[in-house]
């Protein structure tokens, strides 16, 4: 009984860190550009698909996928910012958000047309015997996903919190004109934000590919989970995104095991409604500055 609970919780944490990684990418882009990237799920799906190509089709070493894919997706995201969104930004935010919705559709449709299959399976990185921790079976792969994704997320937070890059992005979000006057270039910071968002989406894709396989549905699943996790955490807080992701993963896993699988698909919506109605600033809002 306790062993089953441990297993359910572990599965929840595993999905939770993946959601957290997805949410973090959304938050990073939103923090710097005040836009929600509705194509983020499609970017992550693209990352998962790329890992299928590299690992299964081309038989490259697995570690190469972990290094190359986030970079490639990051560059692709930056290129999209440069070519498409920069132009639309002159109109308004509303236009940019709608554009990302259709970008997401274009990407997942492109994928569907290239590989018209139901589900592509990707093998896991480790295949040795599992660990037993306090009576709970932890496969090497689960340990790697949880540890690796968490480390990636923490590294990103460190970069955002302390680097010059992060300072620029936060400055830009707080006051675009002011940041420009201090020598930050809007275009540069926006592109960097999209690059970083893309890197995180790519990483989400590589980590999630062996867990769920690759399919078109992944795109909507990731954007919804990432968004809900982000809202729970308070959309501008990277740390909140991680806690939000973990909470969502646990809630899904527990309700699937102890209530019903239909409840699993409703729980994220329920959480979103509850948080938006009663605590729209999220559970862990960034401390806002003085307001005058």
């Amino acid at each position, binding site marked *: 009984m306790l062993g089953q609970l441990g297993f359910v919780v572990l599965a929840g944490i595993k999905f939770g860190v993946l959601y957290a990684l997805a949410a973090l990418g959304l938050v990073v882009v939103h923090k710097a550009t005040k836009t929600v990237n*509705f194509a983020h799920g499609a970017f992550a799906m693209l990352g998962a698909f790329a890992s299928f190509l590299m690992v299964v089709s081309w038989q490259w070493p697995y570690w190469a996928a972990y290094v190359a894919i986030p970079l490639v997706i990051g560059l692709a995201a930056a290129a999209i910012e440069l070519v498409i969104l920069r132009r*639309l930004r002159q109109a308004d935010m509303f236009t940019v958000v709608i*554009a990302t919705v259709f970008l997401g*559709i274009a990407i997942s449709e492109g994928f569907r*047309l290239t590989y018209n299959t139901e589900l592509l399976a990707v093998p896991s990185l480790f295949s040795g015997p599992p660990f037993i921790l306090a009576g709970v079976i932890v496969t090497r792969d689960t340990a790697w996903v949880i540890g690796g994704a968490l480390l990636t997320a923490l590294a990103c937070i460190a970069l955002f919190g302390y680097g010059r890059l992060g300072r620029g992005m936060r400055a830009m979000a707080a006051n675009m004109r002011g940041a420009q006057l201090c020598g930050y270039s809007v275009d540069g910071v926006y592109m960097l934000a999209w690059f970083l968002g893309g890197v995180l989406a790519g990483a989400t894709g590589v980590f999630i590919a062996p867990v769920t396989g690759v399919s078109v549905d992944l795109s909507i699943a990731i954007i919804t989970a990432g968004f809900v996790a982000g809202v729970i955490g308070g959309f501008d807080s990277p740390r909140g995104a991680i806690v939000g992701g973990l909470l969502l993963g646990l809630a899904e896993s527990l309700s699937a095991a102890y209530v019903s699988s239909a409840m699993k698909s409703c729980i994220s919506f329920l959480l979103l409604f509850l948080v938006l109605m009663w605590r*729209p600033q999220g559970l862990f809002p960034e401390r806002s500055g003085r307001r005058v």
Partner: protein
Amino acid sequence: MSERRPDLAALLPALFISLCAAVGLGLDSYPQYVIAVAIISMLVGIALVVLVGLARCITLAAGSIMAIGAYASTLAVARLGVPYLVTLALALLAGGAGGWLIAFPGTRFRGHNLAMVTLVFQSVCIILIREATWLTGGAEGIHVPPPQVFGLAVTSDWSFLILIGGATALMTLLVTIMVRGPFGKNLQAVASNEIAAEAFGVSVRGYLTAAFVVSSAAVAFAGALLAPRVRILDPDSFGVLESIFMLAYPIVGGMHSVWGGLLGGGGLRILPELLRPVADYQELFFAALVILVMMFFPGGLAELIRRGAGLLGPHRERRLKSVAPPRALLEPHAVPVESGHRENELLVVECVDKHFEALHAVDAASLRVPAGAIHGLIGPNGAGKTSLFNIISGFLAADRGRVTLAGTSLLERRPRDRIGLGMTRTFQNVAIFGELSCLDNVIIGLGRNAVMHAVGVSLDHFADGADTQRARQQALAALDSVGLGGHPRSRAGSLSLGDQRRLEIARAIVSNPRLILLDEPVSGVADAEAEELRHLLLRINAERGVAMLVVEHNIPFVARLCRSLSVMGAGRVVAEGEPAHVISLPIVRQLYFGEQVTA
């Protein structure tokens, strides 16, 4: 009153749809089918223009709303034996209820949170339809019986076309009338500047909710028309992908007019029929098309056609006669004066306090503005002028104190209630509604903007009835008196800054208030223009007897405009009196120049 000029242009979209149906009657059965579904999509496009184009809300729930209408109608016919035409009304109600359900939590937010709420609604609806197998037939679908209309079964393609064409034209006419009337104008005002809209009695949440209800009712109506046409109804035909493609209708067609929705909906629904041979690439093509349109033709098809037509012939403006308004239009508001109120004092501010955490922004401030006076409020930066101003205008809550207008307490009232009491305002950063014409900006300033009232007046607007003519005359008179009478139809956003300030003044005086709050009326305006604005304000004060409270940094301007001044420093009112006297007071000089008080 002058002769009526009904808004005949509002008939055109409905006529166009009837024409499409009529042409279809002469064609084969397959084109008849295509035209019928395209007409339904035209209605969806128009409904989404209301929500996406005018109210600027992103919705990803159109598919589920359509499903609500389709299932409501089909289930009522199949399970309860309700006549088909009655179920169309049921679908309207069900769709409106669905729209309200989204708007209730949704309009607390804008932007991406709202978009996400609609996505959630969409997913939950489809899951519910799929799970409730006992009612809806689940994922397998449900057979839709052929509709019975006045005892006749509608089964052939041409009879469907007549039914769909007629019902759609009717609904299109209703929506067009609302969009072209005050309802649509007020929605645009909300989308363009929420604070200014609230200040003139337009409830932001009320209008956004109304936009969701109206738009969803029309989409659900379209769903009920579509249901018998598709014969088998299943939840997957109304999935999130369909919702997203419906969002494309107003974008590709053009977001700002009924024609845009009509062209986008019709065009994008016919396109897949033409793309049959490459059906697999259809979605990719759609998505790419939307992005390209957004990048290169932001106005959509409607704008392209308008520009094309503009090249052919000069644009004719409807001429508007400006007539001297009857004396009655210039009488100030008759607001009952409460007993115990001294006749001469219009605005009374007593001991108002406001803290922002440790900062005591307004400290027991008091001031009085007599009826018909021009009173100035000055003080260095950070003195608390703006806080006090916002408390009076209702955008900031006071911690303590009393603010009354003609004896009526203001503090517990919302900003949008103030116009009804005879108080209006202008804004430091000009807050006109840029997309609307000058005339429409000023008409909103009349303040009769409750949602249900605007819906009713939209009908009056269509018929050019007495209310509409009277409002237009009042607005033209106000435009005349600020010197903008020459171009009532110009887009407000295209005016110069000085003219935009005049427009704001026209909007503030048109309701004949007793008091206007002027928030830095000459900031950013050249000296010569400031002088002109001063004369304008003095003339309006003399002609209409309206009192003014002016917050301004430009001391020479205030000194020559106002008959009395209050000076604030560190949250307190430190001096009061005639301008020349006040400015020479040592305490005021110390505030501004740091001179030592020698007493």
